[in-house]
């Protein structure tokens, strides 16, 4: 066994690898860029080596720097994680040359599977079902149209070197095929420096289902069931689960065996994933093979009990797989939410910055429910613009699918992140979504269910009443405490009104305290609360049903966040509630049609153009003053009519920079 391994990665996956290595008694070496000097993976590892500047191209992607770090620390093997150098043939070869083990597949397998066209050919030869399409490269738009007609619309136009949704277009007719070919080609050229394009059948009601395989250096390959990753936004996975709610044993077996065949065809070892697209009739087609550990590997680990990182390390040493195919049993159901630094309420705008609060749910196994949180951050850490915006992977496991979903809902309610925007509410909303709960998924789920964006999960009346009684209970607690201060008129202590009003959106309830809890609109509701003023979470129960919420205070009550929605609960005296009828509708008060420079300074950059529409929160310009860069953001949704400044301009305070419609 290795004594020391180096992890050529960062963030949660580096921490994940460190965890398994440590459990095996192996020392770990982290590498880090300028931006990651204080990162969690650096803190967790036994040793850490600085490898360069913040951009990945100056650090995590530089093979020589990793090799230097290996030399410096005497690491005997390298785990590449995912992304960065994990599927880089040159890296695997360089390690081989240096006599250092690569904890992953052989360079040949990486190369064979690294190219979409080659891998598809190999798959077809190995008897793997592939999407009907044109294998060769396409010269021009006319040829694209001819081929598209041969395959039959709709077709998918794809960049050979593509990934992450870049350089991909769907065409339903000749015009779209022509246009899609050109834009895919351009995008591919600029994103990957490789503008080769191919065309294949576009699968309807598609689901993304992938097979986890594991092989050793002795020719043994097994499959560890599947994962379904159909909940995607712009081809970025958001929710993953294992097993798939769609597959039957027969299809699973067929997919698994074909995956093994493909792996054996390229002498695969270590962990790998064969991705398929599955249509509504359970026809499955090979998409690609990822020759590395996958982001969503934890769901497989939780249903199979196999530690994939541990297995990868053992395989790299040359050990035989301890498991045979017949030993692989799928147990229960696992669900994963990727917690991203993006704002679902504002078109999933990315968000970066400091995690002023980071309070994940407790990782535990209680009553057959597992909660696991793979993360690479901590409270006070930074989500940097240089890397992937993923904050954490929250994973739950239960005896069946609904149990795993509900456990995920609960865990998300116990997750608090402040300082940056995040998608916890969005993941929470999906866990409540009837179609998701029914398992009726396709990769278009998010586009179909949230065509106009996300505004928080809908609530039924029972949920609203629960929040009303909780808000009232918290307010009572706060009001009672306010009366317990000093300097009160002795003997004239004040008691808050027994009956008060609770408002949520346009609904108004009357509430009063009772022995067991709260009487809401005449109905006695039992409430248990552990909440004290200042607590960041509410933990308690309503009519015996446990409820957790993230709590924020506002001037007239609390904003309670849980089950995918942030709900403003206002608690007022009855007279104040009556008075609300006369209060004017809230306007945002900004008649402002211009962005003015808030301070004397120099314009560093202008982010908008004339005619452009911007959403609230999007950057408009950057002004440097007192040697500091200040990002000026749109206060509401706006359309730019005129840009009156340019980079380098020196501006006085209140000078108009941009005019809006």
């Amino acid at each position, binding site marked *: 066994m290795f004594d020391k391994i180096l992890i050529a990665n960062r963030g949660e996956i580096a921490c994940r690898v460190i965890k398994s290595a440590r459990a095996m008694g192996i020392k770990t070496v982290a590498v880090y860029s300028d931006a990651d*000097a*204080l990162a969690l993976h650096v803190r967790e590892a036994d040793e850490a080596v600085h490898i360069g500047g913040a951009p990945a191209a100056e650090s995590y992607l530089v093979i020589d720097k990793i090799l230097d770090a290996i030399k410096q620390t005497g690491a005997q093997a390298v785990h590449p994680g995912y992304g960065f150098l994990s599927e880089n043939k040159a890296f695997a070869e360089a390690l081989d040359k240096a006599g250092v083990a690569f904890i992953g597949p052989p360079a040949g397998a990486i190369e064979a599977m690294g190219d979409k066209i080659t891998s598809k050919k190999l798959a077809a030869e190995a008897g793997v079902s592939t999407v009907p399409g044109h294998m060769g490269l396409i010269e021009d738009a006319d040829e694209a149209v001819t081929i598209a007609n041969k395959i039959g619309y709709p077709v998918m136009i794809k960049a050979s070197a593509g990934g992450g949704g870049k350089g991909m277009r769907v065409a339903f007719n000749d015009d779209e095929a022509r246009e899609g070919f050109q834009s895919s080609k351009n995008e591919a050229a600029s994103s990957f420096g490789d503008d080769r394009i191919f065309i294949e059948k576009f699968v309807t009601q598609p689901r993304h289902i992938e097979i986890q395989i594991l092989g050793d250096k002795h020719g043994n390959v097994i499959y560890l069931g599947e994962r379904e990753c159909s909940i995607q936004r712009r081809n970025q996975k958001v929710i993953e689960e294992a097993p798939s709610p769609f597959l039957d044993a027969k299809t699973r077996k067929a997919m698994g065996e074909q995956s093994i065949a493909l792996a054996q065809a390229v002498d695969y070892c270590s962990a790998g994933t064969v991705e398929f697209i599955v249509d509504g009739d359970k026809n499955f087609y090979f998409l690609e093979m990822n020759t590395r550990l996958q982001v969503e590997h934890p769901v497989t680990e939780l249903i199979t009990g196999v530690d994939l990182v541990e297995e990868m390390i053992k395989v790299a040493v040359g050990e035989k797989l301890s498991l045979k195919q017949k030993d692989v049993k799928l147990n229960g159901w696992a669900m994963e939410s990727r917690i991203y630094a993006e704002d679902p309420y504002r078109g999933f705008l990315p968000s970066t910055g*400091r*995690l*002023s*609060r*980071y309070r994940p749910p407790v990782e535990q196994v209680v009553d057959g429910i597992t909660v696991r949180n793979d993360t690479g951050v*901590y*409270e*006070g*850490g*930074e989500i940097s613009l240089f890397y992937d915006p993923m904050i954490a992977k929250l994973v739950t496991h239960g005896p069946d699918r609904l149990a795993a979903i509900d456990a995920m809902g609960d865990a998300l309610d116990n997750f608090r992140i402040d*300082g940056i925007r995040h998608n916890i509410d969005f993941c929470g909303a999906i866990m409540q979504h009837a179609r998701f709960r029914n398992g009726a998924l396709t990769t278009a789920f998010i586009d179909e269910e949230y065509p106009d964006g996300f505004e928080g999960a809908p609530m039924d009346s029972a949920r609203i009443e629960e929040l009303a009684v909780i808000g009232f209970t918290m307010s009572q607690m706060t009001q009672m*405490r*306010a*009366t*317990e*201060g*000093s*300097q*009160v*008129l002795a003997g*004239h*202590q*004040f008691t*808050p*009104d027994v009956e008060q009003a609770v408002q949520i959106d346009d609904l108004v309830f009357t509430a009063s305290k009772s022995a067991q809890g709260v009487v809401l609109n005449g109905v006695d509701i039992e409430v248990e609360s552990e909440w*004290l*003023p*200042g*607590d960041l979470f509410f933990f308690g129960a309503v009519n015996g049903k446990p409820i957790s919420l993230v709590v924020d*205070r506002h*001037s*007239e009550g609390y904003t309670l966040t849980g089950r995918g929605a942030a709900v403003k609960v206002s608690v*007022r*005296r009855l*007279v*104040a509630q009556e*008075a*609300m009828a*006369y*209060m*004017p509708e*809230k*306007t945002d*008060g900004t008649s402002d049609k211009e962005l003015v420079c*808030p*301070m*004397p300074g120099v314009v560093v950059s202008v982010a908008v153009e004339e005619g452009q529409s911007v959403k609230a929160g999007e950057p408009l310009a950057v002004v440097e*003053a*007192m*040697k*500091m*860069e*200040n990002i000026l953001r749109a206060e509401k949704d706006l359309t730019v009519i005129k840009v009156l400044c340019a980079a380098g301009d020196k501006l*006085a*305070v209140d000078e108009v920079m941009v005019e809006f419609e």
Partner: protein
Amino acid sequence: MRDIVEELEERRRIARLGGGKKRIEAQHGRGKLTARERLDLLLDPDSFEEIDMFVEHDCQEFGMQDNKVPGDGVVTGWGTVNGRPIYVFAKDFTVFGGSLSRAHSKKINKVQDMALRNGVPIIGILDAGGARIQEGVDALGGYAEVFQRNTLASGVIPQITMIMGPCAGGDVYSPALTDFIFMVRNTSYMFVTGPDVVKTVTNEEVTAEELGGAKVHTSKSSVADGAYDNDVEALTELRRLIDFLPLSNRTGVPERPTFDVRDRVEHSLDTLIPDNPNMPYDMMELVEKVVDEGDFFEIQKDFAKNVITGFGRVEGKTVGFVPSQPMTLAGVLDSDASRKAARFVRFCDCFDVPIVTFVDVPGFLPGTSQEYGGLIKHGAKLLFAYAEATVPKVTIITRKAYGGAYDVMASKHLRGDFNYAWPTAEIAVMGAKGAVEIIFRNSTEEEIAEQTSQYEERFLNPFVAAERGYIDEVIQPHNTRRRVARALALLSSKKLDNPWKKHDNIPL
């Protein structure tokens, strides 16, 4: 007997109707509450006791003798806020437009006198049409009687004004003499002369909102200390502010039970200061992690954002916080920020509210607009305010404390009681590059770079100051709350007197 009791109830009923149903409806139609409704929301239920309900004016001119309404346009009395007493007066717009007559001003004077004698805060709610023109000089005299009492009460009892409608002409000066002014967005405005006169005199066309709305006064003129969306929210938040304030300069700060532990450790503060000294960070995070339960009442939130002022509690007791805000203008001190912080520091000192200062200040803002605007005197106000303050002063330098700004921000030399620094503190005359360019004036670029790094190493840290005792201790950021709590607990018995004087002569 029974008849008399019934008559009393009838007279009360009439008095409470003020200007009558129609006017009340009109008031509601404008999105405003009546004077009595406002007092009902401000005060604890059933705690209001009205004074002078039946007072009427004695004007004999312009037919006013036939036009009398009990109360005469202002509702006065006292009540409690969370059990603590306050005096109140609220202008009743439904009666003579809330205009000020001799009788009206006498009513206000009476509660002003009672509040001062009693050592209890007074809150004024304004929504009025100015002077009762029919009364002529009596109205002018009435204003001055109010002003005189505002001035005498200043620094003895907290005085707060809530502007909830028009407030113009003579009406504006009483608020200006009080400690805090709050406004309601879109329904209140304040100015000395209204848009019509402005047009005649200066030819400027301007609306009431543009001339003196809540936005103008909270962000441009700094006349108002805060603004709210409507009457209900404004009065709710006013109750919250009152909870923080002492009753008078004799009582000390109020105290309430808290569920927050005094030695709460916040490890995330260890990474609050960015590696790059030119990157801003949000000082409000430190404030929220130091105060009890994250509860902070900010004063002048929209004005001179480079310095924060506001009230929080530590171990249940009120503390005034004056943190720099590097998010705006790098936290520099300019004229506006100096005036804002100076006035807040003096309020705290008047009423025995301890002051906690968080310092990250690169200096005073250079430039002609600042110098022409009198930065020297405005900066001196803050210096004066800190220097004269005898309340407990705890100061923590988080990052930059350069030049004169180091001196001003409650330094040891200005009788700071506990002066702490985070390890990230840089206490120096100026930034390294600037300093080296002066000291090594004729050097090459390479030499300057070399000297700069030496200067940084030697001076851009808290240790030079700590070696001289200007900093009492360099503390771990994560322990800041515990350090502040212990310092304030110890200082609760602090006794310090300034030399006797009639009053000081702050550079106004």
